[in-house]
């Protein structure tokens, strides 16, 4: 269906029937994503292979793949990746609990929001990087510091999405539920939550992305494991291939997390106008 819709948007293609088969194969979004990524790495490879850029300053994708393979074989990649993932998971979970709760409360009770939102809006512009010194002071070097920084990065997007969603609830829908006799719990689970998911879920996806950036930032400075630490340590050992290998891993994992969440969003919010393009 998606392919049909896309084909409809490109009337030019219909004039060249012999491309139809190729076009159909490339019409799916995942396929296009694969093509885009492959092209990116191919150009990168060409640039380094033709010595347009010094191989020490920018290792080629093949060299990075080799480095990744080595890291995977000796197991260090998995240790670092596991550590980072575990940190982002814990921090993100805390951010979700706090952000959702605060967003719900502030969205529902205007007076509470009048008190709380100025505080949140004043804390929000402080970048997680600026929190690092005081984080180390409070939590030392270790997992707790990383959890806290991920939390800081992720909590604001979660809060804002939840607050906006609750604020934007359709008054008539709430009234409809009330006059049909809905008890508070049914109102919450059957109306309030599903009605706000189209706004909350994209917020969670953005928050996870920010959290993933924060965990790497935290590990660059305040940890002894993790992808950020791998990059930092490799830099000191002049293993530039490993530095970029770490960066590539971060990028691909972040991409995968976002893609998975987007998939879930599409399924959950299939009814919502925003998902029907």
């Amino acid at each position, binding site marked *: 269906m998606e392919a049909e819709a896309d084909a409809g948007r490109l009337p030019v293609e219909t004039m060249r029937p012999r491309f139809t088969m190729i076009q159909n194969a490339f019409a799916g979004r995942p396929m296009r994503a694969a093509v885009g990524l492959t092209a990116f790495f191919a150009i990168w490879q060409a640039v380094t292979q033709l010595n347009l850029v010094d191989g020490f300053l920018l290792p080629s994708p093949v060299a990075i793949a080799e480095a990744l393979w080595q890291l995977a074989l000796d197991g260090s990649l998995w240790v670092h990746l596991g550590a980072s993932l575990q940190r982002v998971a814990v921090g993100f979970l805390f951010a979700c609990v706090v952000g959702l709760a605060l967003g719900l409360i502030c969205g529902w009770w205007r007076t509470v929001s009048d008190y709380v939102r100025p505080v949140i809006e004043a804390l929000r512009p402080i970048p997680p990087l600026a929190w690092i010194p005081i984080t180390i002071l409070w939590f030392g070097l270790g997992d707790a510091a990383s959890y806290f920084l991920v939390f800081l990065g992720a909590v604001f997007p979660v809060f804002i999405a939840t607050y906006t969603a609750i604020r934007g609830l359709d008054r008539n829908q709430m009234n*409809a*539920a*009330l006059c*049909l006799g809905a008890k508070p719990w049914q109102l919450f689970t059957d109306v309030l939550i*599903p*009605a706000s998911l189209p706004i909350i879920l994209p917020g969670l996806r953005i928050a996870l992305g920010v959290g993933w950036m924060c965990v790497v930032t935290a590990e660059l400075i305040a940890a002894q494991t993790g992808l950020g630490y791998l990059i930092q340590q490799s830099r000191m050992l002049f293993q530039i291939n490993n530095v970029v290998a770490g960066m590539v891993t971060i990028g691909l994992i972040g991409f995968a997390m976002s893609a998975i969440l987007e998939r879930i969003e599409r399924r959950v919010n299939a009814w919502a106008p925003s998902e029907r393009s």
Partner: protein
Amino acid sequence: MNAQFAPATFAAAEPAAPQASTAEVQIDIRNVGKVYDSKATHQAVVALDGVSLRIKKGEFISLLGPSGCGKSTLLSIIAGFQSASSGQILQNGRPISKPDASRTVVFQDYALFGWMTVQQNVEFGLKAKGLPKAERADIARSLIKTVHLAGFEDKYPHQMSGGMKQRAAIARALAPDPDILLMDEPFGALDAQTRVLLQEEIARISTEAGKTVIFVTHGIDEAVFLADRVVVMSPRPGRVRDEVLVPLPRPRTAEMRSDPWFVSTVKDLWETLKPEWQKGD
């Protein structure tokens, strides 16, 4: 008009009340006023002023008036979504303070739950009542049939036309078996043909189900076609201005639209309301 009455006499004559016995009065609107404080202008806006009305069980009432006459505000107070600034509304002798499944509402914008299928929407009020699953499904299916949506049980609201959505919303409102059906310009967003069809449909359903209906509209022919009694309201401040008893028999059918009484009443109402309507715009 034919049945004008001063609300004050009813309030005063309450203990005796010879002609309308309190037993059959289901909704008793007593001197209700609603004032909004406008924060921007620091001026109080009077939306309703001294509205009194007695509605009998099984009666079909049309609240007719131009925009700004407070008819929707009155409906929302009857529903329990808002509270009156003064006066009170009694349902079977008890004051209304919050929404209740004995008074369900059909909204102009349908207010269907977009994440639920038609079936789930209709079952919502039954679930709230705590009915077991199988029973819920049965009742919902038969109501969906009543509003001629059989076959669309598993469709989502966004997959249906406006008329179908409003049919689904009517089925949903009927599901908890309310005493009173409150309809807030339910056909206002529909095209003319669909509106006429749904008017006939609601005339049939309300007669069959024997519900008390309060129907808010600014369509004169719609108000007269459907109601036993048309309550005409005037704007700024919202007041009951007039009442028209409709002698047409029930159920109402399409031919009645060409009944001489119907035609002349609609015309008379339009003549009297015209100046206000023009002022409103």
